[in-house]
């Protein structure tokens, strides 16, 4: 065994030692879950490799994954109001986790939520943090049947997919997205007032339009660059999953903006110009309807399969393959961009997949040395497929409690 291999097996990549940036690995060691769904108090210690969480339906398997995403993204990966995920009969939840990077640097984070109060986030970075300050510190990539909506659902679901990845990569993107949301609220309010008041001073709309256009251009240029980099990864993984029989493509279609074919970078100034023209076109309808009618909140990401729109053309099986490829590409994009290996969360994925697609997902698990959390109803099926050299741990959950682990 060469020296570099030896070091690698110890969890260090050889390049680290020379002080060059290479991939970092974050592993969750421990988690404490209080009053989340049916868990009243659960403490779990995890393996660095694959953690398999099994149990009957409704036992509280997915809740463990939700707790992990709350620590990583400040909220559950399932789109639900905070008040709905609190254990009934209690006032709030509290989750604390401890992780460690491959350099031995610990990272602690706790998130507490009490009904009617602000979420309290504490981490090794400081006390009383905002969600934007912790997103991306512990990158995660989640695959859940719930994400079917990315290929099945509305444009909003696909924007959400893009936003979630970019938020983990760029703090600036989070800032721009927050500004856009606030600005849209204010602008829509003022358009509503203007609609009802004939003597309204129209110049009051202008400052909000200006911010919408500027923030919008920043967001579109970042989304465009992202899709350009993401597309080849997606195509590669789709070929892999489907056996190369089908042609797929991703096209970013920003609202009221035409991006020149093949252009790698969208120039912010030219986007601002296009938005200004767009604003002139929709101005009258905006005033009539009292709402904003242009901007990145109307963008679409078109997924094509064999020349048709996936939403309409794809079969059930193709939808599953698309989702796996999108998520595998997400994992690798985060891996490359952050030089950090995301934690993989698989929520009840295998029950929905045939053996060929399951094998592709397992390949992802068995590669890259990522830490993974998998929920399954039947752990025995999975056991045989997992590389025995990977450290793994099994948890059996019943009624919100860990009843067995080995």
């Amino acid at each position, binding site marked *: 065994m060469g020296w570099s291999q030896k070091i690698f097996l110890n969890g260090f990549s050889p390049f680290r030692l020379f002080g060059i940036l290479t991939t970092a690995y974050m592993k969750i060691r421990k988690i404490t879950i209080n009053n989340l769904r049916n868990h009243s108090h659960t403490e779990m210690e995890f393996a660095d490799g694959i953690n398999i969480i099994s149990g009957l339906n409704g036992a509280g398997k997915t809740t463990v994954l939700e707790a992990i995403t709350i620590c990583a993204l400040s909220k559950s990966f399932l789109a639900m109001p905070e008040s709905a995920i609190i254990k009934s009969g209690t006032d709030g939840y509290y989750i604390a986790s401890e992780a460690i990077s491959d350099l031995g640097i610990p990272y602690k984070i706790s998130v507490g939520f009490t009904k009617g109060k602000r979420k309290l986030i504490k981490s090794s970075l400081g006390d009383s943090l905002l969600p934007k*300050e912790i997103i991306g510190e512990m990158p995660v990539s989640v695959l859940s049947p719930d994400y079917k909506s990315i290929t099945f659902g509305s444009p909003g679901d696909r924007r959400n997919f893009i936003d979630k990845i970019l938020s983990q990569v*760029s*703090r*600036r993107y*989070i*800032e721009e997205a927050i*500004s856009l949301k*606030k*600005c849209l*609220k*204010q*602008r829509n*309010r*003022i358009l509503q*007032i203007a609609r009802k008041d004939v003597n309204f001073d129209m*110049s*009051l709309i*202008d*400052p*909000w339009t*200006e*911010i919408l256009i500027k923030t919008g251009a920043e967001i579109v240029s970042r989304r465009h660059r992202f899709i350009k980099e993401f597309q080849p990864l997606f195509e590669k993984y789709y070929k892999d999953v489907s056996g190369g029989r089908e042609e797929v493509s991703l096209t970013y279609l920003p609202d009221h903006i035409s991006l020149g074919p093949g252009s790698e970078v969208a120039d912010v100034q030219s986007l601002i110009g296009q938005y200004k023209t767009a604003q002139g076109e929709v101005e009258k309808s905006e005033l009539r309807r009292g709402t904003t009618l242009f901007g990145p909140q109307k963008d679409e990401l078109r997924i094509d399969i064999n020349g048709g729109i996936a939403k309409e053309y794809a079969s059930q099986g193709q939808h599953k393959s698309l989702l796996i490829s999108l998520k595998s590409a997400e994992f690798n994009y985060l891996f490359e961009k952050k030089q950090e290996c995301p934690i993989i969360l698989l929520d009840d994925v295998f029950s929905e997949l045939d053996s060929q697609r399951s094998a592709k997902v397992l390949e992802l698990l068995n590669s890259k040395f990522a830490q993974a959390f998998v929920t399954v109803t039947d752990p025995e099926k999975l056991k045989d497929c997992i590389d025995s050299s990977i450290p793994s741990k099994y948890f059996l959950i019943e009624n919100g409690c860990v009843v067995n682990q080995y």
Partner: protein
Amino acid sequence: MQYTSEAIEKMVEIFSALPTIGRKTAQRLTFYLLREPADFSRNFADTLIDLKEKVHYCSKCFNYTENDPCPICSSAKRDNKIICVVEEPNDVLAIEKTSEFFGYYHVLHGVLNPLDGVTPEDLKVKELLQRIDHTEEVILALNSSVEGEATTQYLSRLIKPLGIKVSRIASGIPIGSSLEFSDEATLSRAMECRIAI
């Protein structure tokens, strides 16, 4: 009634109506006042009444003052060609602390916020336009919130056509901090707003 005296109850109510003070702190403050000699309370009460009776807006800059115009507006040493526009009186204090700005101020008392119903009429905008005839430069030093940003845009659109130079304060890396520890959003904004040397 929770307390043994109505006076205590009332005092706690009043204290907890103040910003950043919760019920517990209000109680602690109330009992502290009870323990202190009567002189302290008398002084405290007089000061409160003075505060409200003597302090009012400066008729020029709308900062708080006892004498109208305020010491800054009536100072002959100041440069009357520059006006710095800020959101709140607190911001004047912050800029004054630098001892580097020698123009006048103008306090808006808020920023535009349609959701909260704040319009230009609720701010000291008209008053600002009335006093900038002989001004050469207006510096907009508003916070970088979306609302502050919109107010900056709004004011610059009003003032620029009058032939007056309008500028805004820069945003970027704090002095003395190292690049490595700056957050990504600030750093990327600073890159964008770089200046040629």
